[in-house]
C-alpha cells in the first residue's frame, strides 16, 4: 500500500492558548513495498507523522491517502476502522501495552477485535509467535514474566497477527541487545520482501544503511529530505549539521578512499566491502 501526504498540517491543542503546530505543509509519497527510515531530532515531528498513517491523528488540514483510504478532517471516524487493520503501528516500548493474562490472549486480542474467529486467531497467534522467534511453550505463559526483549517480541507478534499491509515502527530496537535487534530487523526485512511496506523511526545509522532503501529526514515539523539511503550518506556537511554520525561502514570506506582506495560508497554489507577491498589489493 502506498502512502501519500498532501499539504498535511497538524496542530496540537488547536484553538487553545497552548496550540502547537507539529507538522507544517508535509508532502510525501512512500511507495508500496519500500523500507523507509524516518530520522530527525526529538521534537521534529516524527511521532506525529507516523500517527497519521493509521489515522490515530487526523490532519488539521490537508489530506493523507493510504492506498484508497482518504483521511481528512471531515471524514467520519467510524469509516477508518478498516485502515487500522491494514496499517499496524508499533509504538516505542510496545511491551508497556501488553495487558492480558497469557501471551496467547494478548496476541489474539487484535484479530478478535477485527472479527476473526477464535480458532483462526489462535492459529495466527501460534504462527506469529514463531515468526518473532518464540516457540509454542510461551502461549500459556504470562507476558509479565518475560524479559524486556521477549516482551517486545510478543508485542510485535500481536501487531503481525492482524496481518497488516503496512508496518510502522517507532524505534523498534531501542533497549534490545545486538542479536535481538538483528532478529527484529531481519523480521521486518522479511515482511518487506513479502511485498509489504515498512516505515521505521531510527537513530541508528548502521541499521538504516543495512536495512532501509529510502530515508525521510524530518526537521521542525517539515520533511526536509526524502531520498535513497545511499544518497543521504553522500551529504557529509548536511549530516554534520544535523549531528548525525555516518554508519561505521561508510565512515570506514571514507577513510580508505582518502588514502587512495576507490571503493563504492553505496556498499551496505560486509561481503561486498571485503570483496572490493580484496579486488583493489589484487589488481
Amino acid at each position: 500500500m502506498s502512502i501519500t501526504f498532501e499539504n498535511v498540517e497538524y496542530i496540537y491543542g488547536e484553538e487553545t492558548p497552548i496550540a502547537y503546530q507539529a507538522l507544517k505543509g508535509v508532502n510525501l509519497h512512500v511507495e508500496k513495498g519500500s523500507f523507509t527510515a524516518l530520522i530527525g531530532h526529538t521534537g521534529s515531528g516524527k511521532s506525529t507523522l507516523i500517527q497519521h498513517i493509521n489515522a490515530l491523528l487526523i490532519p488539521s488540514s490537508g489530506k493523507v491517502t493510504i492506498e484508497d483510504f482518504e483521511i481528512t478532517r471531515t471524514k467520519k471516524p467510524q469509516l477508518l476502522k478498516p485502515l487500522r487493520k491494514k496499517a499496524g503501528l508499533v509504538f516505542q516500548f510496545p511491551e508497556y501495552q501488553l495487558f492480558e493474562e497469557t501471551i496467547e490472549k494478548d496476541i489474539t486480542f487484535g484479530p478478535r477485535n477485527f472479527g476473526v474467529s477464535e480458532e483462526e486467531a489462535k492459529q495466527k497467534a501460534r504462527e506469529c509467535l514463531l515468526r518473532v522467534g518464540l516457540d509454542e511453550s510461551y502461549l500459556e505463559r504470562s507476558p509479565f514474566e518475560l524479559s524486556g526483549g521477549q516482551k517486545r517480541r510478543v508485542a510485535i507478534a500481536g501487531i503481525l497477527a492482524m496481518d497488516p499491509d503496512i508496518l510502522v515502527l517507532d524505534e523498534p530496537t531501542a533497549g534490545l541487545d545486538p542479536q535481538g535487534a538483528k532478529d527484529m530487523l531481519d523480521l521486518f526485512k522479511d515482511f518487506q520482501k513479502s511485498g509489504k511496506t515498512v516505515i521505521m523511526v531510527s537513530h541508528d545509522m548502521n541499521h538504516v544503511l543495512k536495512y532501509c532503501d529510502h530515508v525521510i529526514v524530518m526537521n521542525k515539523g517539515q520533511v526536509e529530505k526524502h531520498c535513497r539511503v545511499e544518497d543521504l550518506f553522500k551529504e557529509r556537511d548536511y549530516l554534520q549539521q544535523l549531528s548525525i554520525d555516518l554508519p561505521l561502514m561508510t565512515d570506514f570506506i571514507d577513510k580508505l578512499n582518502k588514502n587512495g582506495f576507490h571503493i563504492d560508497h553505496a556498499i551496505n554489507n560486509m561481503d561486498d566491502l571485503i570483496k572490493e577491498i580484496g579486488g583493489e589489493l589484487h589488481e
Partner: protein
Amino acid sequence: MLHVENLCFEYDEGLKTIDHISFHVEKGSYTTILGHNGSGKSTIAKLVIGLLAASQGHIEVGGIPLSVETLNDVRKQVGIVFQNPDNQFIGSTVRDDIAFGLENLCVPHDEMEGIIQEYAKKVNMLDFLDHEPTKLSGGQKQRVAIAGILAMNPHLIILDEATSMLDPKGRKEINELVRSLNQKNHMTILSITHDIEEAAKSDHVILLEKGHIIDEGAPENVLSDTKRIRDLGLDVPFAYQVSEELIKRGIPVEKTLDTEKLVKALCQLHSKM
C-alpha cells in the same frame, strides 16, 4: 566495594535466573557486566539494592552485609540508574526531583539548594532546574536522573542499561559523564550493558550467560574470543569484524579493535602494489 558470593535467585520455582554467582567490584573501578537480554543482568542489580531478595547467597556493600535490618544503610551507599528514566521521576520540576532524594536523607532545607545547584551543574542541566522532567529529551532526562542519584553521594553507582534508549548523542554525553565521575571523583561504577564498546573501555568485564558468570577479567582477555561474543548475541567491534574477514580472504592484516590501525595497514598494502 561490592562483594557477591554464591548468589541465587529464581522468579519461577526450579528456573534459576541467577545461579550461584560470585564476583567482586573493586573500590574506584569501572566494572561492566555484559550479557544479552534475559541473561540475568538486571536481576543482579535489583538483588544488590535489595529490591529483590536472594534465595541463597551473600551480598556485602562497603563492608555491610545486606539484610532486612541493614537495607537502608546499604541503599544509602548505592545509587542506581535504570534504563528508562521516566520510571524514576518523582518531582514536577528538575529541582524537586533532585530534592526528593535529599529530603529522604533528611538534608536540612537551607543546604539543599546548594547541593542541587552543584549536581545540576555537574550534569550540565543548571539551566533546566524549573523545567518539567517529563518534557526533556531522553539524554537530558537521563542526566537529571543521574544528578538525583549523585546528590545523595553514593559510593557505588549502578547503571542498568542506562544509555540503551538514548540516541547516539545522548549516549555519548552520559558515557563521558560517567567516565569522568569514575576518573575524577573516584566513584565506583558498575555498568550493566550490552554495549561492547563501553565494556572494552572498562577496567573489568564480567560475562554473563543464563545466570552464570562464564568469564571475567580485563577486557582485552574477555572480549578477544569473537566466536563466543557472537554466540552470546553481542556485537563484535566493527574493525575486528573487518580484519577477521580480510584474513579469511588471505589479506595479510592483523586482528585489531582499532579502526585507524586497520586503515593504516590496508593503505600500506595498497601503496606497495
